[in-house]
């Protein structure tokens, strides 16, 4: 049964499902056996030693580590450092998200099928092969560009940019901007390909040009969702920005890396608390802005 209603937030699933009365089929057994095999293979491959965790010594070790974290180091110097790291993390996520929006908006209008070569806007056009090709080409280029930006993880981008521009927060901004640009480009593209065609048709029938249709028929429809996705990615980015410092890209991550490496557990706890506060504040801020803007 392929239904679209299984996505989180999708339509409600009728209950009880009519097929629930049918017993399990052979395919189900095969799938389950495959799943068990996958788990067994992964278990041996990933070198799991549960005895390390649940044995008496293991428990003692973990308890000792947790005890070492307390109390958090609240001396003025560390607090100042934590504050600086927090603000820097905020700055990285903020600039990174803005850069991502800029990238996504530049690319997305080329990577949406209904805006660049097919659908309502191009129905009436003479079918000339060269013209069609000329339109499909930027579509393909934009689409594959977004794919590349998106598939390379932020941390790897950060490694690359640290090589290119040196240590500091700037490579972090670039890494976030480039990766999130790819993600937002894909999300924005899905929104654009999903628009209600009726306003577009109405505008077209009044003789509006394509640019006018874009600004008066399409952008007002998609703007709330664009804002919503952007805020969502900002929430993700603040978490990523907090660890980009692990590869030398500034923010709280750098301080955490140093604290863990030098066994400064008390400082580590301070920085973790700082992350927690920052993430919570940004979540609230983002929820507030979403309520106000949409």
């Amino acid at each position, binding site marked *: 049964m392929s239904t679209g209603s299984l996505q989180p937030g999708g339509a409600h699933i009728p209950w009880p499902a009519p097929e629930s009365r049918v017993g399990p089929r052979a395919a189900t057994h095969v799938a389950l056996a495959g799943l068990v095999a996958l*788990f067994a293979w992964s278990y041996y*491959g990933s070198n799991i030693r549960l005895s390390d965790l649940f044995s008496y010594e293991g428990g003692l070790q973990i308890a000792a580590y947790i005890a070492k974290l307390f109390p958090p180091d609240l001396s003025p110097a560390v607090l100042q450092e934590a504050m600086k790291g927090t603000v820097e993390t905020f700055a990285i996520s903020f600039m990174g998200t803005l850069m991502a929006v800029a990238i996504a908006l530049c690319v997305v209008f080329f990577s949406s099928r209904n805006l660049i070569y097919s659908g309502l806007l191009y129905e009436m056009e003479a079918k000339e092969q060269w013209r069609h090709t000329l339109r499909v080409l930027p579509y393909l280029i934009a689409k594959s560009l977004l794919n590349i930006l998106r598939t390379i993880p932020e941390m790897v981008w950060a490694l690359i940019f640290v090589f290119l521009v040196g240590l500091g927060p700037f490579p972090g901004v670039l890494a976030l901007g480039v990766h999130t640009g790819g993600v937002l480009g894909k999300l924005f593209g899905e929104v654009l390909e999903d628009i209600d065609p009726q306003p577009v048709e109405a505008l077209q029938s009044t003789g509006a040009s394509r640019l006018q249709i874009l600004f008066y028929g399409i952008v007002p429809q998609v703007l709330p969702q664009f804002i919503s996705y952007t805020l969502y990615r900002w929430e993700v980015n603040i978490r990523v920005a907090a660890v980009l410092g692990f590869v030398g890209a500034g923010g709280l991550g750098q301080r*955490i890396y140093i604290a863990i490496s030098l066994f400064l557990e008390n400082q580590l706890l301070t920085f973790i608390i700082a992350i927690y506060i920052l993430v919570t504040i940004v979540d609230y801020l983002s929820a507030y802005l979403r309520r106000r803007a949409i």
Partner: protein
Amino acid sequence: MKRQDLSSISKESKSLFPYLFAFFFGIAFIDSWRRAGIAPLFFFEAQGREHLWKFVRGMFPPELSSQFLSLMLQPALETIQISVMGTLIAVLIGFPLGILATRTFSVSGILNDAEIKGAPARFAARYSIYFCARAVLSLFRSIPEFVWAFMFVRAVGLGPFPGVLAIGVAYGGMLGKVYSEIFEGANERPLEALQSTGANKMQTFCYGWLPQVLPNFVSYTLYRWECAVRASAILGLVGAGGLGQQIEISMRMFNFQEVLTLLAILFMMVAAVDFISAKVRAML
């Protein structure tokens, strides 16, 4: 009546919000620009151009010798194994905690209304369980998986195991939260029907609740598995096994040909996992 409505609308449109927003946005922008050390023209300057050129030229041709590829097979498989095991642990953590963190299961709602009425002590006990479960989940997911991974590398040593634990704990927190949201969104009527037949709480749970939410559970867990593959591919940057370790080594050795190959492997792996996960979801 109508007049009032209109006046309230016009008042709202004159609110200070846009100005305040623009003001704070401007301040945040200027300050962030300064703090993040943005240099927009960096790649047009001589040094930036030189580095960029060195990197791009260094990537080609990608390293495709069979020796290197066979050497990379093991970390690539390890990445998959870490993600599978990590997701399994995340489910084992997230499922029980997610149930306890569901208000309609542990505190109020049809299942509990009769029990907690006139029993404040029981209510307090239930509520504290609910609250603790929420707090643990929130703690697990608010510490990024990278920090978890680094801490576990310290605790249990290098290798894939800390990666598994990091993904298990961090994703357990996320899964638990989403599971509890899915639970709370479930239709209460089947529960009521079961309860009125005299089913106990366990039976109500298994026959009324679980069948409703299972497809959503599986779908979301698969989505998290996709994320786990991406995450486990890079957790190696802090020494937790998988492809990430190789990427970091190659990057630090300025072996960009190998970097390109590794990125291509990562690309294919992620695409394959997305494909499988989409197929499974379509079958549900």
